[in-house]
């Protein structure tokens, strides 16, 4: 199953469970002779220990999967320069600066590590890569004065779209580009 769907399902299951729990607690308040919660101190202790352990386990599983560590030891097969600007993306195999504005169509090989060096020439923008099923694959921010290096290995060839995921003004939702993976 796709990550996106898994995340949604996980969230929905937990939310419905929480709603159920609140409903049970609510219904229990309609009794005639009240007993209250038995052993609340002990229950509270276990409640905390369990929650804290779940969080620690999740932390230790998810932190290593952070994008900063992905393909960090590989050397990229291709380097692609991206410069965002209200409301276009410039892309090139050579560095793009204010004195050297250039853009070209991008085609990169599949199953190789590609490095995108992303910056902006004006305000903050986002650089988000979508596959042809309109699923967000990966992203980084395009910030003026800084270069974010995003590494990715495309396993499926095809056309990929770039959308801007940081609000950058009136044309924000029309800002887009694309590239090909062969």
């Amino acid at each position, binding site marked *: 199953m796709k990550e996106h769907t898994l*995340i949604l399902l996980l969230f929905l299951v937990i939310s419905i469970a929480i709603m159920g729990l*609140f409903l049970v607690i609510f219904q229990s*308040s309609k009794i005639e002779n009240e007993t209250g919660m038995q052993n*609340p101190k002990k229950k509270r202790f276990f409640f905390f220990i369990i929650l804290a352990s779940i969080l620690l386990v999740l932390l230790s599983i998810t932190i290593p999967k952070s994008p900063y560590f992905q393909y960090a030891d590989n050397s990229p097969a291709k380097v692609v320069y991206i410069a965002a600007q209200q409301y276009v993306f410039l892309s090139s195999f050579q560095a793009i600066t204010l004195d050297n504005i250039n853009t070209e169509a991008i085609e990169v090989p599949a199953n190789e590590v590609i490095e995108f060096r992303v910056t902006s020439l004006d305000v903050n923008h986002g650089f988000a890569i979508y596959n042809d099923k309109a699923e967000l694959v990966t992203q980084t921010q395009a910030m003026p004065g800084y270069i974010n290096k995003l590494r990715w290995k495309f396993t499926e060839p095809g056309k990929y779209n770039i959308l801007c995921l940081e609000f950058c003004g009136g044309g924000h939702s029309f800002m887009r580009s694309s590239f090909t993976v062969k």
Partner: protein
Amino acid sequence: MASISLKRITSTWIITVMVLFVIAILFGITMRFNQGKLIQISPTSFYSIMTVHGLTMIGIWSVAGLAAIHYLLSRYLSIPTSISVFAFIFTVLGVVMLWSSAFIGEFHAGWTFLYPLPFKVAWKSWATPLFLSGLAVLGVAWLVWSVGILYQILKKYTITQTLGWQHFSTNPSIETPPLILISTVSLIGIIVCLLSAVVLLVLFFAEYFSNGAYSNDPLLMKNITYFFGHTIANETLYLGLASLYELMPEISKKPKFKTTWYVALAWNCTLVFILTAFFHHLYMDFVQPLGFQMIGQLASYFASLPAAAVTAFSVAVLVYKNQIRWSLSNILFFLGVMGWIIGGIGALIDATISNNIILHNTLWVPAHFHTYNAMGNVLFSLAFFVWVANDFSDLPVDSGIPKFIISLLVLGGFGFVLMFYLGGAMSIPRRFALYPPEFNNLSWLATLGGWFAVVYLISILFIFFTILKKCLKVFSAS
């Protein structure tokens, strides 16, 4: 005891907040219907509306929280009513300035006005300084109010007592009421974050008046912006919880909540963690030092645990197998805790760096923060409003749960946010006035979300009318 002048200013705050809330919801519905192609407005109008909606919502629920603790703290100490009046006048002024900059000046840089966008003037050139000045007015008003309240607390309690540290020893000499503890923790947070807003505005103005001689560092500005934005949004919620601790047991006719060592510990931890959790807004800025990214995820995980778990557990102990006299106000508190926790789960998922890469700035973000706001914090404040309105007048107190209103609220509220969650999971970006062609087949999500919001609005109007008559009573009483 609340004086008549305190009742009047509190009532004024409530009516103002409710009127602005209804208008801001209508702005929200407008945005959703535009995204769903049911209506058509220009992208720049959309973004002006979005900017005003975000700021107004954050603003009104901050002042609602401050007004609530001001009122409730008067049971323990005396706080001059004049600072609340001062804050009110300046808040109205600030709001007028912000709305004018957006609706007349066409300013539309979003409520986070991320540097350097406000300087890329795509609106009337006076709108940027007016917007920044409007923020400064609000900042000063709320700073004076928060510092004023904190000052009165510290006149009665020492700083360690307000933070409940004596509860870590076996025989605490005095008990810090939870209201004092939570108010102090929230006020410290609010003051720190308002000060950061002042720094931010100074940096903006420095560049504005330097005519190109000085320019700011975008990464630093982004860090300050989110420190401010994230912190204010969260502290506001804690103000709502302060009312919950004070009122929910009382309304339910049960013994008051007490500060114990674990309650004190939880809120002290919250004070620390919440100030560093904002780093999760910069996960996708890979140039941010790696240590901050790690602190971001750690603090986000552990900021949610103490306050939420302690509160949820205390509410469970209060209600479980105990006969509760339910009424509109305590059911709102109860539902609010549920909404807050569900929104918190959505937030935790997004605050996990490996998920953030596919959720950052998608509709998942408005999904989770609308859950803990519209179905969490708002309900805490509404619960206070309903309770205090009864305190204002001797009109009969309604009892029992108004099933119709609560059903609309739950259906409308959760339906509205569910459409955001589905959109986020399907990678639809946030802050898009119009969706690009690849999402054409999903525009029904936006329209349906808008209709759910209409249902939510209807229940809010019912609640407003329930309390309005009582709120107006204080102006005729002598």
